[in-house]
């Protein structure tokens, strides 16, 4: 086979491989080319974060508005302090909103849902959520149910 034809075919082969990699990056793993810089930080303290992990989803009304930046243990209050990166254009979260830990599906992973309050003032950079609801703990629920509470 002519050398030129071989070269072209091999070139196409490599391009196909790179295209596959690109497909895996974008379509399969949802890598998004959006600029990461346009976020601001909010904090929330939870008694029990359950299975929450950094890079977890933060949603409002089902729409993803940010990701979990980091989770640390507050040594004085013994609560988990979660730092979140919220998209800058979602800048009107009422100051009395609650951060609730929810699970998607029965086996699904956990995420933070922002339950809207009614305050006219909005949360700003570095603010902490006033009210939070911890992750549902299956054993506690069952024991509550069993003891009839």
């Amino acid at each position, binding site marked *: *086979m002519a*050398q030129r034809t*071989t*070269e072209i*075919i*091999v070139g196409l*082969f*490599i391009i*196909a*491989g790179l295209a*596959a*990699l690109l*497909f*895996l*990056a974008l*379509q*399969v*793993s*949802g*890598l998004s080319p959006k600029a990461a810089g346009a976020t601001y930080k909010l904090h929330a303290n939870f008694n029990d974060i359950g299975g929450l992990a950094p*890079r977890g*989803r933060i949603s409002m009304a089902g729409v993803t508005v940010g990701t979990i930046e980091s989770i640390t243990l507050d040594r004085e209050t013994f609560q988990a302090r979660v730092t979140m990166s919220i998209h800058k254009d979602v800048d009107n979260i009422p100051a009395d909103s609650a951060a609730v830990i929810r699970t998607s*599906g*029965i*086996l*699904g*992973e956990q995420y933070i849902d922002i339950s809207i309050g009614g305050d006219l003032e909005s949360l700003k950079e570095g603010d902490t959520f006033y009210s939070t609801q911890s992750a549902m703990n299956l054993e506690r629920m069952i024991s509550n149910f069993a003891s009839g509470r």
Partner: protein
Amino acid sequence: MMDRIAALGRTGLDVIASLGRACQFLAGVVGGVPKPSVGFPLLVKQLYAVGVLSLAIVVVSGLFIGMVLGLQGYTILSDFGSEAAIGQMIALTLVRELAPVVAALLFAGRAGSALTAEIGLMKATEQLSSMEMMGVDPLRRVIAPRFWAGFISLPVLAMIFAVVGVWGGMLVGVEWLGVYEGSYWGNMQASVDFVDDVLNGLIKSVVFGFVCAWIAVYQGYDCVPTSAGISSATTKTVVYSSLAVLGLDFVLTAVMFGNF
């Protein structure tokens, strides 16, 4: 009795000696970088023979494996009511494990054995010797392009395998079994991480490519130059490559995905 122990010891030493030869061989292959004007056309020719010609088997296998994953996965997940998770199940299985490993096994069987047989035949017909007598280093001219071609091709083939598999899973899951297309892709994107999953899978296939290519060219170069020798070398390539891939897969998975 002592004879048996001595024979066992000798076999052990033979294996170690073979490993030593293989490492020296690798140094000779990797170390000699030819002139680009000479080496590049040889590499391109081998990429075609080794990579492009393996595409058919990789694509067909990927498709079928993706479809089977779709079928089996749907059956199992529907017991939990979690059919929507099928996208992420298929994608994670393929990207992390099946694409690198199965593509490597197929590669070893098709391209690896072909490389071993070709090089072994060149050795048996004294082509390698005559090249040496003409002052050309066969390691650089014949072996190295084939090695690099294998090393480059396998990651490409593994990526294509993963993509075709995901698409095959979508065919079965969405078109046939009725999973909602949005959740197929949505759940998948939420749970497959580019760095942790896709890149790790890619790293695996690079490692496998190195090992499979090395074993294939070494067995051909080191074989007994008779027809029985070549056939034995070809078998060894497939067996050793497969075992190496599976063993390395365990090690790599433990390192990458274990939580130690």
